[in-house]
């Protein structure tokens, strides 16, 4: 039975002005359509150029449900290929990262490919003479993905060859990536520390929704951040405040704090919390960092860069970036009810190690499968994933501070507890789900 395939109207009907239908989170057919359409029509984050510094360096990952390999080509550019041998379909590059030299060699039958995917050689090539091989798909080698864009070392792709342009898709939202890079005295980031992976038994959009949900920290995280504050209060007077307490405590800020810090809503589902203030605003300075920033950027510019303390920036569809602590999280969809969360951390090249240390501590305390904040959140997602199977109600509500005039506005700043950003994400979801969907008889 197919309810949504070839039926863009049915997909559009899942998102109302202030409500989202539960099928967006629990329905397997919707998930399959997300893989075929949403993750093909949008610009999806792949990886960072520092992961493949030298020619032949590669890194394998997934874009939606598509296995891909990002590789540094012999000409110094970055290529993104479908990680599939043209012959029998074997994943040519093994999981992880490494250096393949001048070419990829399939481990099954030794077909080889240049690092731009072009077929280089086949053993016993004569066996294909006069077989029509030149007109077969296999002769094309490893397929490249539709379009690739490297923006300040962040690599994005759009799987579909045609569609919205990179600049048009991201617009002014790229300022968060700019700020993160500008925080390096040398204007450069490196992936560092290792990736934290956490398996979630819930739909990937619950995580996206949570990133700009400022009404949950003081409730769901009372158990973790609230306990940290309580335990710290028992420390003898004069004890220096530990880094961990500095990281935990702002989660317990009152509603007013989150209301006042603001949310900025861009187009196409991008947006960020923490416009004028954020939970990352009041960390202790790292000795020597300010001086090196002033030396590189001048005092005024340095102040401007470090004064931008954005909290969570959602790049639709499935990443979140924290500029002030150099973290990028990917919500990788595996099934309607299964998501792999990868939390990547970066070193600000030329900055003190203390900043990376803090970033890694934050990642341990908040994003690890062993982290108490992570336990708080995942419990809520999993209960929601179960609860949404209820037939007692059909809709998820995202109506907080809704204003009919918000439609069509972009780059708007609003109250930090507005669910506008969540609504904006789902409006983008509809747009990119249906952009390449043919209307026809449901099959």
């Amino acid at each position: 039975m197919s309810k949504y395939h070839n039926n863009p109207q049915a997909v559009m009907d899942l998102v109302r002005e202030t409500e989202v239908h539960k099928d967006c989170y629990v329905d397997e057919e919707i998930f399959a359509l997300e893989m075929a359409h949403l993750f093909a029509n949008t610009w999806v984050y792949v990886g960072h150029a520092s992961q493949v510094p030298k020619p032949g360096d590669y890194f394998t990952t997934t874009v939606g449900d598509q296995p891909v390999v990002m590789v540094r080509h012999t000409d110094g550019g970055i290529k993104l290929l479908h990680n599939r041998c043209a012959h029998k379909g074997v994943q040519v590059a093994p999981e992880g990262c490494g250096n393949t030299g001048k070419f990829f060699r399939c481990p099954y039958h030794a077909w080889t490919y240049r690092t731009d995917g072009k077929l280089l050689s086949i053993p016993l090539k004569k066996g294909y003479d006069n077989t029509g091989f030149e007109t077969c798909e296999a002769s094309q080698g490893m397929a490249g993905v539709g379009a690739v864009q490297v923006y300040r070392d962040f690599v994005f792709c759009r799987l579909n060859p045609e569609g919205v342009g990179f600049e048009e898709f991201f617009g002014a939202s790229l300022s968060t990536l700019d700020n993160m890079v500008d925080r390096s005295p040398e204007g450069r980031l490196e992936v560092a520390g290792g990736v934290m992976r956490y398996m979630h038994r819930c739909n990937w959009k619950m995580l996206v929704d949570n990133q700009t949900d400022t009404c949950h920290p003081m409730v769901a995280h009372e158990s973790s951040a609230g306990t940290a504050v309580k335990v710290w209060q028992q420390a003898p007077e004069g004890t220096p405040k530990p880094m961990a307490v500095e990281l935990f405590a702002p989660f317990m800020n009152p509603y007013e704090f989150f209301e006042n810090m603001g949310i900025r809503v861009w187009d196409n589902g991008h947006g960020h919390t923490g416009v004028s203030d954020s939970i990352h605003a009041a960390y202790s300075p790292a000795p020597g960092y300010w001086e090196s920033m002033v030396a590189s950027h001048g005092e005024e510019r340095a102040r401007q860069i470090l004064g931008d303390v954005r909290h969570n920036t959602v790049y639709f569809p499935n990443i979140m970036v924290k500029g002030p602590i150099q973290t990028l999280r990917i919500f990788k969809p595996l099934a309607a009810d299964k998501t792999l969360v990868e939390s990547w951390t970066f070193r600000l090249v030329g900055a003190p190690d203390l900043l990376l240390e803090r970033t890694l501590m934050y990642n341990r305390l908040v994003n690890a499968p062993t982290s108490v904040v992570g336990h708080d959140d995942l419990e809520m997602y999993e209960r929601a994933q179960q609860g949404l199977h209820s037939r007692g109600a059909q809709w998820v509500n995202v109506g907080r501070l809704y204003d009919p005039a918000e439609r069509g506005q972009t780059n708007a700043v609003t109250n930090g507890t507005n669910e506008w950003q969540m609504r904006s994400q789902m409006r983008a979801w509809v747009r990119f789900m249906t952009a390449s969907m043919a209307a026809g008889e449901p099959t």
Partner: protein
Amino acid sequence: MTAPTNQQLIDFVVAEAALLDELRFDEWLALFTDDGHYWMPLTHGQTDPRLQASLLYEDKLLLQVRIERLHGVRTFSQQPTSRCHHLLQQPVVSARDDTAGIYTCRTAFHYTEARRDAQTLYAGWATHSLVRQDDGQDNGLRMRLKRVDLVNCDAAFGSIQLFM
């Protein structure tokens, strides 16, 4: 104060795991030195807990937060609560320095954590860095570091809520 025998070191490691299985976390925390740490590396053979990601690297303050959280009325991820089970291989005393009062034990283990209908098995090695403190209790042995290396430390796990 006399130096602990190998058997006493082994008994310490076994008793430490038993406290966790019995959910006696406050007593377990008291087994650490004041500057003690609990460490679960994220990568095989990891040497740096500071500038490399770890699953856990916590001092006594953070461990205390974790323990108090487990009992909190608004700790929803522990409603219902988790339980755990350690199955230890015979610990091996891998290093001893009686002059300094520093000892190392290594113990292969299987650890099971269960909550509701879900039960997950983990396998790894625990390394106990023990020191002798002259406070007259339990041979004066305390943990300066408990390091837990999972055989699949770099896998993507679901929530791990108790202590291995």
